[in-house]
């Protein structure tokens, strides 16, 4: 099998540009890999072989004709199945949308119009979960140990990149859904500043928290994908209207004088010793490279998880009300009137976790409880933002764990929702504050499972993260999974 698929996007972009390889060759190699390893991983809900190869050939033709192409043109990618792809089924890993074919493209897909789409990546149903176990279709396995979860909700995207089933992938992050699977699968995952990437066409979970971002093999690739997907979009009122930056300019390797804070609340109770040790090790590496590293405090952190679950469930209960069996997607059989269509469709179409969040969100917004729960959570949000603002007066980047633990076994945390929710403890406050953050691999635990460290930036400090991450990457051991007894 071609070794091409083990290369990074920046390596492949150079080869494509020099016409040493074709996109068709690369895309074919990628599908060969998928055919070989997908039976162990189950990263994809659906594959798009014909479409991807057509796109690859189109790019090759354009390149031969000398047409101007984007830097990543022709490099195939996996797309999380909650990002609308025109003409390609977009299910959100739910029975509710098992047959939904969007007649339009998400804005981010228009920006990636030169990208062959390998397929739609598995996820937790409607992005609600931290293990990809709530998918209606399949359970994605962690490439480092197929008895374990890949993290979630973008588990398919994380596993696909980790297992070399995609050169890069897009995911979405509402409370850690890019960073946590990236951490557990040993790849780079980046959640941009809220408003940097258009949400138009991303099926909404919690509108004020959702953000699309990349999964990549390294920080350089991450910068390249960010260059493609960031930018103002008039279809998204929350999209920031600012000049686009070139993130590759942050690939300097120099962190001298950079101020890095390690918030003590993130490495305290609830975080495994091995994870904590890796974070501290990363801190020491930064120090050695000339950064100023200091312990700091984010005192609102203990409140973030509760605030997150109240806000995200409230918004979700409203965002998911439109799935009523009338315009698209699943409709329950044998309905004789409108009310029956509503009740039966929604009861049969949604899984347990989605129902739980809808119920919680409905409660939080219902008359008599709004002030005590929803409004209070929005006030906590104000305090969390202020907390970060104050901290960022002193620091450029914060260093923290991404996940309090490494990948767990299937079913291990499924019994108790609160235990599952606690897995998001290190990531949710970043969404609440709308900040950028990345997870990057930084070694493994005793069992050989990847550990990720999280770099958190100030609003629009996305490039600071790239800069710090690129420098740290040099000191991170290279890890790759063995799948079916081979690389």
């Amino acid at each position: 099998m071609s070794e091409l698929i083990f290369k990074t996007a920046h390596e492949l972009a150079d080869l494509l540009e020099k016409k040493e390889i074709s996109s068709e060759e690369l895309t074919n190699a990628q599908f060969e890999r998928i055919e070989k390893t997908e039976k162990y991983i189950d990263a994809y809900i659906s594959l798009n072989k014909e479409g991807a190869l057509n796109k690859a050939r189109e790019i090759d033709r354009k390149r031969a004709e000398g047409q101007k192409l984007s830097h990543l043109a022709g490099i195939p990618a996996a797309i999380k199945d909650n990002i609308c792809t025109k003409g390609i089924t977009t299910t959100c890993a739910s029975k509710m949308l098992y047959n939904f074919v969007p007649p339009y493209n998400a804005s981010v897909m228009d920006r990636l119009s030169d990208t062959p789409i390998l397929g739609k990546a598995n996820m937790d149903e409607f992005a609600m979960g931290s293990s990809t176990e709530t998918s209606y279709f399949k359970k994605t396995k962690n490439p480092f140990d197929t008895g374990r979860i890949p993290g979630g909700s973008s588990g398919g995207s994380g596993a696909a990149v980790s297992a070399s089933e995609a050169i890069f992938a897009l995911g979405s992050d509402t409370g850690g859904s890019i960073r946590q699977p990236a951490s557990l699968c040993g790849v780079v995952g980046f959640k941009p500043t809220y408003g940097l990437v258009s949400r138009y066409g991303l099926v909404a979970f919690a509108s004020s928290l959702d953000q699309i971002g990349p999964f990549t093999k390294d920080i350089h690739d991450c910068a390249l994908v960010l260059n493609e997907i960031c930018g103002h979009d008039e279809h998204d009122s929350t999209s920031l209207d600012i000049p686009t930056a070139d993130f590759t300019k942050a690939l300097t390797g120099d962190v001298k004088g950079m101020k890095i804070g390690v918030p003590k609340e993130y490495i305290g109770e609830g975080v495994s010793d091995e994870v904590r040790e890796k974070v501290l090790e990363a801190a020491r590496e930064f120090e050695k490279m000339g950064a100023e590293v200091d312990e700091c405090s984010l005192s609102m952190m203990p409140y973030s998880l509760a605030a997150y679950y109240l806000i995200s469930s409230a918004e979700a209960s409203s965002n998911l009300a439109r799935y009523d069996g009338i315009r698209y997607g699943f409709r329950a059989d044998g309905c004789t009137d409108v009310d029956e269509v509503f009740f039966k469709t929604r009861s049969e179409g949604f899984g347990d976790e989605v129902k739980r969040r809808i119920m919680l969100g409905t409660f939080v917004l219902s008359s008599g409880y709004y002030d005590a729960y929803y409004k209070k959570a929005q006030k906590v949000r104000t305090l969390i933002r202020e907390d970060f603002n104050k901290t960022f007066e002193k620091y450029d980047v914060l260093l923290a764990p991404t996940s309090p633990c490494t990948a767990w076994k299937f079913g291990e945390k499924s019994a108790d929702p609160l235990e599952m929710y606690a897995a998001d403890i290190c990531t949710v406050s970043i969404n609440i504050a709308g900040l950028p953050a990345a997870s990057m691999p930084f070694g493994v635990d005793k069992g050989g499972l990847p550990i990720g460290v999280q770099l958190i930036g100030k609003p629009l400090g996305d490039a600071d993260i790239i800069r710090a991450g690129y420098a740290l990457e040099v000191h991170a051991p290279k890890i790759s999974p063995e799948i079916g007894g081979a690389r």
Partner: protein
Amino acid sequence: MSITKKEVEHLANLARLTLSDDEKARLTREMSNIIDFAQKLDETDYDSVKPTMHANAKTNVFREDEIKPSFKASEILQNAPQQDEGCFVVPRTVE
């Protein structure tokens, strides 16, 4: 605070969900736990705090009043579970 089975039934009705008895019992328990957990927020005083609705502080985001072509009815209806004469269709009981 704990939530009652009756409240769960009311919420399910608002959300257009039919729950089995098992689901009702489980959700009553789980939601009570989650809401208990949310009581943690009460440790702080919020009287003077203004709520934040959005993750960034943009205001006055408007679109100009300019017509763009609509989609074809066939595209609008392409995902409809049931359609008739250019419309989405819902079954109806004769009374």
